[in-house]
């Protein structure tokens, strides 16, 4: 039937029920994925709601309270306060926004650039392929940190410069990955079939190559999220990324480092946040990889 205007009510509830069931069975089959997604969801939600659920939202900005400096965790400040009296809990929670924002931007930029370069190279082949891949190789040669340092010297260090620096070193991996996918897809029959039907090259790329090449890239992206967050934290720890008063976890660790033995809470809580987030995304990445493993595919 075309254009199903009326859908019986029983059908929608049945659909909803089956979705819960799929979720439950999914949790049982892919425990790692389930834990990762749950944890990540908590982090994301908490980060999104930060301004409303934290006790001292202004501490995430430029507020300073010299008199309340370095208070150990207690009733008023569950995670204590830092060197300039800011509530650590608030800053850690807001830090989620910063880190996640950086990760998302980097992933988006790297994926878009990487996919464009890679799919074009793999699909068109020949000289274009060689040229694009050589450019990719040049970027691959730079270790992320080195490039970030160089870029930071040129641009003023900030969260934005960190995003630029990390994206510049991350996209080549996606280019390589999607190129391999595109080349493999090109060899199968359905691209030729599309050509025989008269599909234009761009249609072939968009309709056939991209959807089929995307899955490994998505999996890789989820695996990379953790790495990006860690890299961003490292950069800000080195002073090359986010700057004070931005509540970036790596920056917070750096700021509290000298006080590690005395005011342990300043370092520990941001550090824990980094670890937990990295673990969550790693689980997601691993889980997705297992879930999409063709050898496990049930037919």
């Amino acid at each position, binding site marked *: 039937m*075309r254009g199903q205007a009326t859908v019986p009510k029983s059908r929608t509830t049945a659909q909803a029920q089956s979705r819960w069931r799929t979720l439950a069975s999914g949790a049982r089959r892919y425990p790692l994925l389930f834990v990762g997604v749950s944890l990540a969801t908590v982090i994301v939600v908490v980060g999104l709601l930060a301004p409303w659920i934290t006790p001292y939202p202004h501490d995430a900005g430029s507020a300073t309270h010299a008199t309340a400096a370095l208070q150990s965790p207690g009733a008023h400040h569950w995670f204590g306060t830092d060197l300039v009296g800011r509530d650590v809990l608030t800053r850690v929670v807001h830090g989620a926004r910063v880190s996640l924002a950086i990760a998302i931007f980097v992933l988006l930029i790297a994926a878009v650039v990487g996919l464009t370069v890679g799919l074009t190279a793999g699909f068109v082949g020949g000289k274009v392929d060689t040229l694009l891949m050589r450019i990719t190789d040049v970027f691959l040669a730079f270790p992320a940190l080195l490039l970030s340092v160089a870029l930071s010297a040129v641009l003023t260090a900030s969260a934005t410069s960190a995003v630029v620096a990390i994206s510049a070193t991350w996209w080549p991996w996606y280019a390589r990955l999607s190129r391999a996918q595109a080349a493999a897809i090109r060899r*199968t*029959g*359905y691209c*030729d*079939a*599309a*050509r*025989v*039907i*008269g*599909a234009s090259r761009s*249609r072939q790329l968009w*309709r*056939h190559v991209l*959807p*089929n090449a995307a899955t490994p890239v998505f999996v890789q992206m989820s695996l990379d999220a953790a790495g990006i967050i860690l890299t961003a934290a490292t950069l800000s720890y080195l002073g090359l990324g986010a700057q004070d008063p931005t509540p970036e976890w790596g920056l917070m660790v750096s700021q509290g480092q000298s006080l590690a033995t005395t005011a342990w809470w300043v370092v520990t809580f941001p550090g824990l946040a980094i670890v937990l987030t990295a673990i969550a995304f790693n689980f997601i990445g691993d889980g997705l990889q297992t879930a999409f493993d063709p050898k496990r595919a049930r*037919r």
Partner: protein
Amino acid sequence: MNALLSVRDLRLSYDSTQVVHGVDFEVPQGPYGVGLIGESGSGKTTIARALLLLHPIHRGSVAFEGADVSRLRGSDLKAYRRAVQLVFQDGDGSLDPRMSVGANVGEPLVVHRSVPRAVRRDRVAELLAEVGLPEDMIDRYPHQLSGGQRQRVVIARALALEPKLLILDEPTSALDVTVQERVLKLFERLRIERGLAFVLISHNLAVVDRLCESSVVLYRGSVVERGPTASLLSRPRHPYTRALRAAVPEIGVVRPPLTRIGSGTPPDQADNACPYAARCPLAVDRCRTETPALREVDGREVACHRAEDTIEIEPFTTHHDDRKHG
């Protein structure tokens, strides 16, 4: 009468090696089938790809309804794409696994904008019905279908634009025998109902016999025999065709043991020799110094200097006594 497809002196290369050396044949208006018979290395698949403009044509010409296809542009090219379609060997590979059956079959309609969106689904259902598949298959995915069903989806898609010529590249080789039978019957029916012309590429002589009125036998990129299928297969003249025919096992037929001849891996194609000379039991000096041209023998065209003598020789096999020359 104008031939639908006319191939003249087609020469094709693959990675700088020439694989097709001057092939000619014609396909008349449908319903009609032309078989391209050959084994691996014969160039048949490359020819098929060239006919579909999937392979560059450097020398020679392919003309469709009188027009050279390599020069087609724009709307003429689109018209050619509508008129000539392909059914692959591997139904598995030629359907996009991420698109539903309906989307796959409907793709030609979308690309050519020939059917308004509202009516598209109905048209797809019609096409599926024509190949014997139920309408509810539209929302299924290729991996959920059996090999035979997938092949029929591929055929449905090929029919979507009302083609005049279908290129069939080993369409049934990957199918079970009973499924193959059904697909062959489908082809026979479609031939008549739609007046289609076929170019059937296959190494399976029985399938070619069933669907093709005339055939072209290819050996290492050259035409060695050409003519009406029935007589070509029942009284093959070219030694290679004879070897091919003799090698096909048949139920209930006891083949005499084959005499082994030949001399190992074939040398590179010499410019002025018969491509089969290295393997041929009838080869004489002339065969190694002069490329035989196609000439009329027994109602067919045969490229052999000794075509008149071949009928007397014992069945033999073409390759492989590698002991002699290694």
